[in-house]
């Protein structure tokens, strides 16, 4: 029966809808999968590895054994502070002793002399680690100790030769506040220094890199093994700004995939509608010849499952092919090359295809078995319930479950489902009245409009279903484009080309004016300077705390180190109060505190808690009166803890500032380090470049994935048009018999399509305005900008898109000889 119907052309539409649906979805799935993998690998460069284990004690060998067993590359880094001396000059430095392979991700840039440092294009990428007996130092140490290539420096009990200057290390950002000059040596020289002794403060890093699966496996294996004082870091654990950018991108990509699911559902619903209508007669005949309802049902069920499997496989192949092309297209963008995708999207695609088909096909099929046998005699007797919208209830439930599953985010899934369900109900209700209203108006119009309106009225349920499906389709596209715009704009806005990439820490009060002069001298705009007082959190309310109080490693770390506190009269512009209230001007001497919400959550601090800090030996006590949300994506100076101005006045204060420096202005930084030797310079240019590059890639990927959603939108359009094809062919035959020119017929149809499209467009704009806000605001944390143009865009997309597609879709109808059609009908 399947092959017979296939030959008769019955299944083409349904299969096509399913193939496009599954194809679109797996494309997005495969692609997001690969892009997500690529993005994580890219960002792992900032860690120098895919995964990092940091420990206070030497790591046990079985960590390495397991890594080797699962096929990971490893490199170990031993980090400690030590004095470096060159003759009588000496300085405290951060020493990293590395083993072969370092860095596992990203590149280490070296220069041979000072001149090369000033022109970054002359630097070179290190192809190995320092040889034994050799040391690589950074610019700061070189200046302070007056070093040049070939000089000898003392590190502990050994002497090493300065061979190169470190320009950039990929893992620079690990341990953000490690601000001493940096020195890189070969781990083999470590014993000779004699610096590794009981009680030395040493951090042992194990860097790991490899296949995603292996990394995940290792991560799972190692987590329960970690001892006190050991922690695991992936890029997501390390950098909040990258974490949030990645999470949003992932959410958007899954949103795009979900949108194509909705579109697919709409296309399938339309196609199945047509299928059942075309099978009414066959069922009636079978019923009249004594077929039982269960016979009919199992016949069609078998039939649909067979077709669903075929179409889903085709769709998966299509999806895979499309994403291969996409990968090729993006290959210039993703430096690392996209990793091979997992098979999961294909399995998802198959499953979704089947579930979607059965969810939307089963209810109409169940109706099909109850075709009255009387239809054999009276063709105008249709299905008792087939036209009812409630037949799609099962489909809707299935779709909802799919959403919750695919969204990976219950809240996002919930918003989308309720959004779409509400949209269907509201569209349905308004659509019903509008169709009635418009139909009433047809006697006031003439010519093409009258026929257009007459057709809409005649097919009022059908028209309604089409309008809703098209409305949902356009709505999904509008929501996506709105959010995409906001997302890309926000990313680009948060990291403008002049985003601060240099931080100066440890500026003393008496150096503020000198620094101002320095900037003036080089015509650099004065960056804002923030006061900073360092204090350790020792007590929350009555409870004295220490690192051991907390089991969360992040909390441990926060308590162990000193907090950077600042004061301010006004709330910084990129901060937002999420609980409590910011202080008034007259409260500036009150003992109150505003804390960043993330830190508060980690440490379990609530509004109204009394916090006790040890600041330079004396205790500062203040009450938490507000919590702030800080946008860490912006690379602006921000503080976990802020107080009113007077509270911290009498404690030792230093200042911090941030500003943007072009790579070509390296000599200014060089001069700055020379003029203010006590300043700690933190260069985040590399981090920012990475994030900017990532954003560019993600934006591009989003554009592309969006194209696929668009394709799914066309599938809906096609299905909608094809769903009324039979009636149109008949109409065309009568019109042509009665002497209608193609133009006249085309006009009547254009009128019908324009009305349907216009209605769908208006619905879509209304729905998109609300849903876009909800998703943007609550799920993606975007500042949603209302776009009034969306109404015009929606309306025009509907009218123009549906009319053009409709006319193209019905073109073949015009060329069928009328007699053929009329005889078929009679």
């Amino acid at each position: 029966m399947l092959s017979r119907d296939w030959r008769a052309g019955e299944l083409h539409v349904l299969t096509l809808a399913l193939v496009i649906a599954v194809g679109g979805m797996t494309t997005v799935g495969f692609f997001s999968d690969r892009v997500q993998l690529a993005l994580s690998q890219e960002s792992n460069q900032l860690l120098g590895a895919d995964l990092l284990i940091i420990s206070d004690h030497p790591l046990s060998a079985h960590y390495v054994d397991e890594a080797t067993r699962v096929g990971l590359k490893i490199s170990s880094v031993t980090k400690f502070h030590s004095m470096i001396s060159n003759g009588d000059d000496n300085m405290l430095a951060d020493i990293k002793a590395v083993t072969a392979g370092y860095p596992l991700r990203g590149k280490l840039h070296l220069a041979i002399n000072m001149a090369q440092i000033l022109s970054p294009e002359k630097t070179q990428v290190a192809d190995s680690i320092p040889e034994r007996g050799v040391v690589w130092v950074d610019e700061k140490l070189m200046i302070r100790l007056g070093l040049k290539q070939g000089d000898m420096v003392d590190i502990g009990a050994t002497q090493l030769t300065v061979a190169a200057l470190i320009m950039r290390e990929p893992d620079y950002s690990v341990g953000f506040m490690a601000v001493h000059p940096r020195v890189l040596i070969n781990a083999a020289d470590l014993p000779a220094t004699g610096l590794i002794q009981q009680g030395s403060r040493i951090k042992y890093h194990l860097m790991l890199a490899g296949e995603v699966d292996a990394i995940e496996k290792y991560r799972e294996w190692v987590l329960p093994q970690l001892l006190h004082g050991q922690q695991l870091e992936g890029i997501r654990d390390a950098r909040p700004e990258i974490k949030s950018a990645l999470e949003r991108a992932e959410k958007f990509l899954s949103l795009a995939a979900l949108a194509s699911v909705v579109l697919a559902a709409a296309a399938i619903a339309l196609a199945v509608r047509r299928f059942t209508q075309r099978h009414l007669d066959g069922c009636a005949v079978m019923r009249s010849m004594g077929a039982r309802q269960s016979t009919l049902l199992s016949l069609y069920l078998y039939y649909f499952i067979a077709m669903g499997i075929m179409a889903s496989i085709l769709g998966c192949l299509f999806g895979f092919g499309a994403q291969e092309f996409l990968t090729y297209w993006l290959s210039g963008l993703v430096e690392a090359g996209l990793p091979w995708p997992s098979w999961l999207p294909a399995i998802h695609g198959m499953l979704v295809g089947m579930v979607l088909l059965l969810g939307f096909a089963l209810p109409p099929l169940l109706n099909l078995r109850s075709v009255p046998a009387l239809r054999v005699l009276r063709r105008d007797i249709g299905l008792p319930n087939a036209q009812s919208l409630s037949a799609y209830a099962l489909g809707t439930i299935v779709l909802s479950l799919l959403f919750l599953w695919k969204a990976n985010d219950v809240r996002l899934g919930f918003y989308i489902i309720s959004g779409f369900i509400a949209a269907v109900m509201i569209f349905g209700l308004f659509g019903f009245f509008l169709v009635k209203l418009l139909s009433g108006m047809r006697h006031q119009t003439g010519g093409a409009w009258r026929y257009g309106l007459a057709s809409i009225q005649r097919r009022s349920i059908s028209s309604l279903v089409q309008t809703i499906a098209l409305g949902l389709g356009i709505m999904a596209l509008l929501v996506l484009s709105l959010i995409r715009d906001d997302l890309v704009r926000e990313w680009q806005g948060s990291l403008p080309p002049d985003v601060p990439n240099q931080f100066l820490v440890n500026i003393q009060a008496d150096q503020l004016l000198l620094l101002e002069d320095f900037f003036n001298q080089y015509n650099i705009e004065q960056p804002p300077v923030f006061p900073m007082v360092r204090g350790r959190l020792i007590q929350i309310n009555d409870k004295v705390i220490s690192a051991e109080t907390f089991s969360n490693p992040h909390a441990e770390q926060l308590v162990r180190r000193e907090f950077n506190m600042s004061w301010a009269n006004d709330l910084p512009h990129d901060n937002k109060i999420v609980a409590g209230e910011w202080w008034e001007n007259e409260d500036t001497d009150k003992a109150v505190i505003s804390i960043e919400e993330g830190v508060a959550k980690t440490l379990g601090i609530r509004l109204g808690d009394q916090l006790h800090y040890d600041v330079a030996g004396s205790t500062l006590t203040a009450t938490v009166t507000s919590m702030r949300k800080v946008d860490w994506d912006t690379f602006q100076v921000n503080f976990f803890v802020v107080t009113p101005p007077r509270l911290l006045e009498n404690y030792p204060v230093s200042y911090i500032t941030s500003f943007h420096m072009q790579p070509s202005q390296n000599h200014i930084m060089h001069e700055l380090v020379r003029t203010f030797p006590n300043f700690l310079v933190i260069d985040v240019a590399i981090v920012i470049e990475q994030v900017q590059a990532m954003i560019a890639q993600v934006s591009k990927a989003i554009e592309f994935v969006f194209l696929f959603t668009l394709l799914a939108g066309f599938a809906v359009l096609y299905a909608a048009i094809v769903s009324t094809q039979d009636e149109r062919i008949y109409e065309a035959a009568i019109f042509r018999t009665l002497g209608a020119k193609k133009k006249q017929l085309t006009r009547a149809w254009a009128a019908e399509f324009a009305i349907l499209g216009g209605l769908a467009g208006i619905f879509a704009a209304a729905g998109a305005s609300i849903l876009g806000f909800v998703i943007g605001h609550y799920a993606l944390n975007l500042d949603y900008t209302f776009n009034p143009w969306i109404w015009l865009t929606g309306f025009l997309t509907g009218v123009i898109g549906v009319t053009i597609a409709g006319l193209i879709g019905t073109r073949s109808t015009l060329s069928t000889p009328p007699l053929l059609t009329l005889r078929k009908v009679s």
Partner: protein
Amino acid sequence: MVQNIKQPILRVNSIRKQVNTGEIQLTILQNINLVVNAGEAVAIVGASGSGKSTLLGLLAGLDIPTEGKVYLDGVDIFSLDEDDRAVLRGKVLGFVFQSFQLLPALTAIENVMLPLELLGIRNAEATSKQLLMRVGLEKRLKHYPKQLSGGEQQRVAIARAFATDPKLLLADEPTGNLDSVTGTQIIELMFELNREHGTTLVLVTHDEAISKRCSRQIRLASGQIVQAPEQAFLERAQGAAN
């Protein structure tokens, strides 16, 4: 109405129609030659499957022959493109079908107005109203086909067929879907209107009684025109006399 009786409204030259049904070529009509003069009423009769309806479709240019020509009101219709053929149909032809073929989306009056509007005629509504009154449906103007009985639907179709005042009315088994009483009424109505409008009529039927009401019968068998037995007798007799 005065018409030149000698002027043929329809002339068919050597029509052949073949259909491809996959493996076999089926000849539905062959060697059809036919002239219908203005004012005539011609019945095409024959058994089911003899090719009557196909012939009617070809006469109207609703289908294209494999070979041969049809001149409608002096115009070679297959030399025209599909669009021009449609326009010619709109001007010259009226149709009555076995299964009525009303547009379900339109009311009775809108169905009658349709051919007039397609021709761009202004007072379509008034004309249609009059015609529907003439066929006895003055109370059914705003009803949809679904709400009308078979007989009523065929009345609407007849009103629609005469709306443009066609020169030639083509009717394909107009009573085929109706009971005999209603069928008789419909035939009466059609012939009345045909007389009133002075229309030429070509009627396809398998009902001998109806065909007898026409001035001439053309008999089809297996796709060819055959002579009626009495005609054959007359021709033979004439031949013998010569």
